């Protein structure tokens, strides 16, 4: 390409893809929200919703520059801070500003994914501080390594849409956060059941829908590669869902709905790094294989002391790792035009993939731990036992997901001389409401 020019079709597809990826964050709110107890439903959903704002603002202010600005092999510079110089000029074949927004939607969902490991116990203020700083200190550099011209990109590590940058990165932070915060007080003492499985299925469905933008949009063009990534995003989770269901049937004789929702997400995670790089049958195999480690890790984790409450490590960590490694095995020049994997005579690629996985785990683990410890110096990370018993919806947000208006007494603002006239009636109503 001599001079970069805008291509309208590419621009149109990336506009749609950006919206699709952004939808994945509220979808995650439903997926996670359904899996917790009703007294923590709003808090869990707010952990995703808040990322739309806090990580979105951090991304525009600094995150984009640290990830995609000119810089060293490890982190971008500050030249693009506050979107300076990010305008409508072409970045590839789409407007630079649109590229920034598309990548921003990735940063948001990645930070929100971490929340699954620490639901039902983290103070909301500490959580906000954590994801905002995490998106700058951990996500942005790792995105730079792989997509911003950093050292993993130069080594030739393949990560089509974010198996390492998004999923392994988020899962490592999730593991560190779950260990640092410790268990919920009821963990392994009482049954903790999902309060709304239909929410979880709704979330899984919307995640799959949004994931077409996540994977097929990562072609950054409306072309054949996008079509390949799109089809692979349909086939791989289908394969995972089938294997997951069969494993469920073999284990308990019942195909579970929570299992189906989980299987879909694991398949989506696993195909992410490979989406535009492997053929459709390879994608199907990749999806099927990915079911096994995650399935057995989930079953095993519940018997351990690790309260990774919604199994971010089993679903995203293992799913992402299997996907990243199998990308190095199944990548095919016949489909992607540039690079082969082990199966097509390039065993070195698998080694490069493994280096990428290890580098992301090491950095994300260490940096997330230090960040949590630094925040803990300023504010407590965890709510106290009494608040945990009451539920975080009331203690952190002053709201209930399923509020009952019986016994709710309106507090009227006192203003002017007219207001007291309304008060005796209110007091009477309060007395009638059970206060004798």
């Amino acid at each position: 390409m001599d001079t970069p020019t805008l291509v309208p079709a590419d621009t149109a597809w990336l506009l749609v893809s950006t919206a699709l990826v952004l939808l994945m964050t509220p979808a995650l709110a439903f997926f996670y929200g359904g899996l917790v107890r009703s007294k923590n439903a709003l808090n869990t959903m707010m952990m995703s919703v808040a990322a739309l704002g806090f990580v979105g603002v951090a991304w525009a202010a600094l995150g984009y520059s640290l990830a995609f600005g000119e810089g060293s092999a490890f982190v971008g510079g500050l030249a693009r801070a506050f979107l300076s110089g990010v305008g409508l000029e072409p970045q590839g074949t789409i407007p630079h500003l649109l590229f920034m927004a598309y990548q921003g939607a990735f940063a948001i969902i990645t930070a929100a994914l971490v929340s699954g490991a620490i639901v039902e116990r983290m103070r909301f203020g500490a959580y906000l501080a954590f994801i905002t700083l995490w998106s700058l200190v951990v996500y942005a550099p790792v995105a730079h390594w792989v997509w911003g011209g950093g050292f993993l990109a130069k080594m030739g590590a393949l990560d089509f849409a974010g198996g390492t940058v998004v999923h392994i990165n988020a899962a490592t932070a999730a593991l560190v956060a779950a260990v640092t915060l410790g268990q919920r007080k009821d963990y392994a003492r009482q049954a903790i059941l999902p309060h709304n499985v239909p929410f979880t299925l709704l979330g899984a469905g919307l995640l799959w829908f949004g994931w077409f933008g996540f994977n097929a949009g990562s072609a950054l063009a409306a072309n054949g590669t996008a079509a390949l990534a799109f089809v692979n995003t349909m086939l791989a989770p289908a394969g995972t869902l089938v294997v997951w269901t069969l494993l469920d049937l073999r284990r308990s004789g019942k195909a579970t709905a929570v299992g189906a929702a989980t299987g879909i997400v694991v398949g989506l995670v696993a195909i992410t790094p490979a989406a535009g790089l492997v053929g459709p049958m390879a994608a199907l195999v990749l999806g099927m294989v990915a079911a096994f480690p995650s399935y057995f890790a989930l079953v095993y984790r519940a018997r351990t002391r690790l309260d990774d409450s919604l199994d971010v490590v089993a679903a995203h960590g293992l799913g992402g790792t299997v996907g990243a490694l199998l990308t190095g095995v199944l990548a095919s020049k016949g489909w992607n035009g540039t690079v082969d994997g082990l199966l097509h005579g390039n065993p070195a690629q698998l080694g490069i993939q493994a280096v990428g996985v290890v580098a992301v785990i090491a950095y994300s683990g260490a940096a997330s731990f230090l960040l949590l410890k630094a925040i803990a110096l300023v504010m407590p990370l965890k709510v106290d036992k009494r608040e945990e018993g009451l539920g975080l919806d009331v203690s952190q947000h002053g709201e209930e997901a399923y509020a009952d208006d019986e016994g709710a007494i309106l507090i009227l603002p006192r203003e002017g001389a007219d207001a007291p006239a309304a008060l005796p009636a209110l007091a009477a109503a309060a007395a009638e409401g059970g206060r004798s």
Partner: protein
Amino acid sequence: MRLVVAIVRPEKANEVLEALFRADVQGVTLSRVQGHGGETEKVETYRGTTVKMELAEKVRFDIGVSDHFVEPTVKAILGAARTGDVGDGKVFVLPVEKIYRIRTGEEDHAAVTPVQVVAAGRA
């Protein structure tokens, strides 16, 4: 014969149930209720509307027992439901005039004595 009525925090309900089973109390009725017992009201805000929640979610246990079972039952509830904060609930012990077991027509003590205990000859 007594009817033990306990109003406890919902988050303590499972622990109370466990403690009751451990004390060999097996006949239990449980209902979700709302009540007010002097605890600080929760204040909630929905857009511009601020409300004081005067009623708190509670769980009510109704347990019919024979006289010598009253003390272990009450002890189990007190031990399991206490957090030390206002709002832990109450236990009421009421006299009962008559009890029938619907399945057999048995009356009074026989009606509230668990079946396997009868088989073991303790009644």
